[in-house]
């Protein structure tokens, strides 16, 4: 988390080379389903979908963790609750009942996604308001505490499947599209991911983002020039929770299943590792990190059941010998050097 992490994430620091690389990435992502079809590997489309969904969650976490310096070990809470929003809407729809006697069920993606964002944001507002009274290791642990509380709450909620979770028989609907089709669902996720990354890019480059980065570097100094850090941090934490809730809702649709597993602390750890692996505080780092972790896991699992014995040393290598994760490694290798 050096100074250049900021300039890197700062839109005013971009130039032609970077824009070109971004364009290539975007084109590649759009062309991906057709390419894998052409080489006869259609199973890669769901894999890419999973990468995109995790990228949304990791990028949202990165706003709090990388830009704002708030190391949250409890983002699985927002991820899981986003998923449960989809699940509970679906269950209520099937039962033709009312959730809490008020809210009817639905299977429309245009309702469930905003609802997941809203719930994620509200939850982050509540948790953040309390947790931000602490900092450092205490902050890491108290965010974990709240996530664990929610984990055990959903485990004990027998009405929504408890430990076993619940199945969502059909994916949410969107404009009569066949969301069951993997390619269609991939494009939905890609569109959402593009919007999220665009929004995060704008946020990081805005005055709000600048203040946030300033608070991470020196909170006392920001306070001294008349800025109330608490509000900015809480704001960033809420936005971060909203994005993660959104990713959770997409994941529930992707898997057609939600369970307390989505809220488990290992999921928080996984998201954090994607961010660190990709490069803390960088715009596209979380995407690279998510892709690296998901793809490595998939490839290594297909090779050997002892895949963790290979993944572990790889992660260790990345920490010990690259600074700034994959983005830092790319920089050192001269790829995307123009970024600076």
């Amino acid at each position, binding site marked *: *988390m050096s100074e250049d992490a900021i300039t890197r994430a700062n839109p005013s620091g971009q130039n032609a080379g970077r824009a070109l690389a971004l364009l290539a990435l975007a084109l590649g992502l759009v062309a991906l389903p057709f390419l894998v079809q052409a080489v006869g590997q259609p199973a890669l489309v769901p894999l890419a979908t999973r990468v995109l969904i995790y990228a949304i969650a990791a990028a949202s976490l990165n706003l709090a*963790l990388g830009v704002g310096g708030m*190391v949250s070990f409890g983002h699985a809470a927002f991820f899981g609750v986003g998923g449960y929003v989809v699940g509970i809407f679906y269950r209520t729809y099937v039962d033709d009942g009312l959730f809490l006697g008020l809210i009817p069920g639905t299977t429309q993606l245009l309702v469930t996604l905003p609802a997941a964002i809203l719930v994620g944001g509200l939850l982050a507002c509540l948790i953040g308001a*309390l947790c931000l*009274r*602490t*900092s450092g*290791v*205490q902050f*890491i*642990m*108290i965010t*974990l*505490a*709240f996530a*664990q*509380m929610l984990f*055990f*709450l959903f*485990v*004990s*909620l*027998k009405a929504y499947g*408890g430990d076993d979770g619940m199945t969502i028989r059909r994916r949410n609907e969107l404009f009569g599209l066949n969301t069951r089709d993997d390619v269609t669902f991939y494009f939905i996720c890609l569109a959402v991911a593009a919007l999220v990354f665009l929004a995060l890019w704008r946020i990081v480059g805005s005055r709000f983002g600048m203040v946030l980065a300033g608070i991470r570097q020196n909170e006392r100094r920001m306070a001294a020039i008349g800025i109330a850090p608490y509000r900015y941090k809480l704001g960033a934490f809420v936005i971060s929770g909203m994005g993660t809730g959104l990713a959770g809702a997409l994941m529930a649709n992707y898997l057609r299943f939600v369970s307390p597993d989505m809220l488990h*602390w*290992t999921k928080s*750890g996984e998201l*954090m*590792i994607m961010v*660190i*692996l990709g490069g*803390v505080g960088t715009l596209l780092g979380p995407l690279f990190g998510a892709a690296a972790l998901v793809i490595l896991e998939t490839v290594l699992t297909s090779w050997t059941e*002892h895949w*963790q*014995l290979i*993944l*572990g*040393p*790889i*992660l*260790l290598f*990345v*920490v*010990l010998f690259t600074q700034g994760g994959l983005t830092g490694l790319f920089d050192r290798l001269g790829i995307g050097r123009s970024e600076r």
Partner: protein
Amino acid sequence: MTLILEQLLNGLQFGVMLFLLAAGLTLIFGIMGVINLAHGSLYMVGAYAAAFAAAQTNSVLLAVLAGLAAAALLGMAMEVFVLRRLYARDHLDQVLATFALILIFNQSVTIVFGRQPLFVSVPPALNGSVELLPGLTYPVYRLIIIAAGLAVALGLYLLINRTRIGMLVRAGATHREMVRALGVDIRLLYTAVFGLGALLAGLAGLMAGPILAVQVGMGEQILIMTFVVVVIGGVGSIRGAFFGALLVGLVDTSLRAFLPGLLRQVMTGSEADALGAGLASMGIYMLMAVVLLVRPKGLFPANV
């Protein structure tokens, strides 16, 4: 009444186990500023080494020695080869590195010992129960754990407060740079502290063997609770770790034992059991949240 006393003893026993882990974790964090997620792996390795030695030799003494040695050596190796390079880095890098270590240790243990949990029997000499009070019988083995934990606590107190090494440890926790500037071989001190923390984790692991199943993943379960203890007690404070561990042990055990019963008086059985189990599991996290909201640095903050 005897039921309550028995649960209190169970809570105490769980508490001292947590203390053994938390003491090492809090020392390592307080002195070296490292978040060591792989501390739970040392606990697991201690348990496996002791279980293996016990199965091979049938000797309690050898099993204890094997468990302690394996954990301490592994801990020191970890410090020398990995963590030493990360002291100057961000906490996040330490988290990623120690997470990688967890993957490596878990998988290595799976390859060597398989996925089936090992069951270790209580040493025959300790396999009885004693009647503490009329109507209250309690397993000798658990009493031994409590005694061992309290003895370690006393020993650590004396070590930290009465010896030269303890003085260096305290000085290191307060002001690292100053100790180095005064000409203390800080690298040796770090490795020694890491080894001590690992030794205590191994002790907890080998004692847990006969009570719990020895299996891969046992380290991560208890690791999270250990972090809760460390944060409640105040990061870097041994005294905090001690009282935090007893508090968490007692609260967790009594909630699990009594909450479903209490809830069953107001709702039907199965629902009460599910909700009670959920609430009981939430209990220590609620405790931690409340403690941190009231005292953001924990109950016994170290460096004030």
